[in-house]
């Protein structure tokens, strides 16, 4: 180990942190999608990452292929993704509302493969560049940050605030929270549980779509699995079902994913390829040691 390389690592830190925050924002949005569906239906949607894939690919199609103005293209992309989420709920999740957990898991895994294959069918090439909302970079001491990062940050903050307000200050949001506490009781006081399940998929797909289209610069049919597992990791790290847990988890994962491989590469000279395993390792470790997450109080399903 060389002292010089440790200094290099600290010198790079601002850049790692900037990159980590940018990725963390995307993980936060995916994690919130997992949470919303988990809260209202009790299932983990393995196709959550595919919503991000659709968000990015639709945005590309509307903005570049069809040449629509960017704001309109983004709006349409989010709308189209939300429709896919709603369709999935009506055609797959609603029929399975009485099914066992195994059945629900396998069905959403099936949906995930199906969506991925559709993505590959209609957008066959490897990666598409969704135009940046504002191009160019700016520098802060020690790091170069793209202007797009400000959009990512802003949209994430707005989404988190809106989701928080929705769940705490609107009738529908409160009804969805009631479903998460006890579906039967919620149904007894007149809440339409199945409609809440539909709303949750619409909302989760919307958030996933936003995450996908700000996941600049590239969208491809293959990103779903990776964003899915990272979003789930973020949700679990913070505590599944908890909005602020998703924020914490997303930021922790985003930063660790830059800092750990950065340290290993610069100081120990290890290949950067291990970066792909950071989220999976963090997921397994947190599930084993603290399944209720960093912020969670309740006990997760555990024997």
């Amino acid at each position: 180990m060389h002292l010089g390389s440790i200094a290099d690592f600290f010198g790079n830190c601002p850049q790692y942190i900037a990159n980590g925050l940018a990725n963390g924002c995307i993980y936060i949005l995916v994690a919130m999608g997992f949470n919303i569906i988990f809260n209202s239906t009790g299932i983990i949607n393995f196709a959550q990452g595919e919503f991000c894939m659709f968000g990015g690919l639709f945005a590309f199609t509307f903005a570049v292929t069809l040449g629509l103005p960017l704001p309109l293209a983004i709006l349409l992309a989010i709308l189209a993704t939300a429709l896919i989420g709603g369709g999935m709920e009506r055609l797959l999740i609603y029929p399975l509302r009485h099914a066992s957990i195994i059945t629900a898991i396998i069905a959403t895994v099936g949906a995930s493969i199906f969506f991925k294959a559709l993505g590959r069918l209609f957008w066959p090439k490897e990666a598409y560049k969704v135009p940046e909302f504002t191009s160019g970079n700016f520098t802060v001491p020690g790091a170069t940050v793209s202007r797009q990062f400000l959009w990512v940050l802003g949209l994430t903050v707005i989404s988190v605030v809106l989701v928080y307000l929705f769940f705490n200050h609107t009738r529908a949001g409160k009804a969805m929270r009631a479903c998460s506490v006890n579906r039967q009781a919620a149904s007894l006081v007149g809440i339409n549980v199945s409609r809440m399940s539909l709303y949750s998929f619409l909302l989760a797909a919307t958030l996933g779509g936003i995450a996908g289209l700000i996941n600049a610069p590239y969208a491809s049919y293959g990103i779903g699995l990776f964003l899915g597992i990272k979003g789930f990791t973020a949700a679990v790290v913070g505590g599944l079902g908890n909005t602020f847990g998703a924020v914490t988890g997303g930021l922790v994962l985003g930063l660790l994913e830059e800092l750990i491989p950065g340290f290993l590469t610069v100081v120990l000279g290890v290949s950067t390829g291990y970066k792909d395993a950071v989220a999976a390792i963090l997921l397994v470790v947190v599930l084993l040691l603290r399944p209720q997450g960093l912020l969670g109080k309740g006990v997760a399903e555990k024997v």
Partner: protein
Amino acid sequence: MGGNGSEKKVSGWRSPAWWDGRARGSIGIVFFVVFMAVLPLWANYVSKPLGIDLVFVLRLVGVFTIAAVGLNLLLGYAGQVSLGQGAFFAIGAYTSSLLAVKVGFPVWLGIIAAVAIAAVFGLLVAPVLRLKGHYLAMATLGLGIIVFVFLRELTFLTGGNDGVRNIPGLAIPFVEATTKISEYYYVWVIAVIVLLLCGNLVRSRVGRAMQALHQSEVAAEAMGVNVSGQKIRIFVLSAALGGLAGGVYAHLQGYIDPNMFSITLSISLLTMVVVGGMESIWGAVAGAALITFLPKVVEAIPKWVGDAPRWLERYSNYEGIIFGLILMLTMVFMPSGISRGLTDLVRYRRSPFVNPFRKKVVE
């Protein structure tokens, strides 16, 4: 458990008592073994006109049967969802092929080592079994990704993305050439032994304990089943079978690289179990056959039709669509798998389809 309402009086054909006993099982096995033994002799004749190398595919079916039976013990019988069976498959494949290529182990010894290493790895990661349901599924998916990344990055050992080349083929002792047919018998002898052992296992005390903990872990515990011990044993056995399949697979292919063992493999194995039928040993054979043949058939269709439509050319895109649809439709309409649903249809002469849109009175 053979479908809802099986306690009702069953109408239709009833098999005689002697047929329902051990005899049926034994006769079925004898038929199966004879059929599988004769199959390749016939397969060679139809391979050319079909445009599918039948013996080649049948060998793969044998390999995937072994891994699928292992996963079915865990998923179907014990009720634990694992999306990481591909990881054990990969570990088996790399163990056996690296021992053969770098150390010069004989093939059979390498495969035994593959089983052992996969089992040890299964034991090491067994703590994930403390998790249930979605958490277990995600954790095993995570394990699959970790193994994949390490196979890719530990280049000094695994060759990274270049993979391992020149892996010696399977060969039966006393048979001169390593022909396709001899490899077929090698694979299927192992597969039939595995099927018989697993069939016996699920009918034994252990098997009943497994199914008990699938129904209710609390009730199983109360009946004196050591739930966590039982789960770990099944998990290790399932891992070992995954390793066995992987070891055989590597020698069959002669070449492996990490991309063969991505999440797609775990999901294909899951599809085999689900399609073939959870809680059905023979269902694994059916599932493995269907899921292995499907892409080959789609690939061969252009050759059959001659003037193939353009949309068939990118066949590989359709594989995911077909698998995804199969998983979703099976779960919605026949949650215990196609083979079991059809068996119920034949036995009880009533529709195996669940009507998922029926309103339940009690939520």
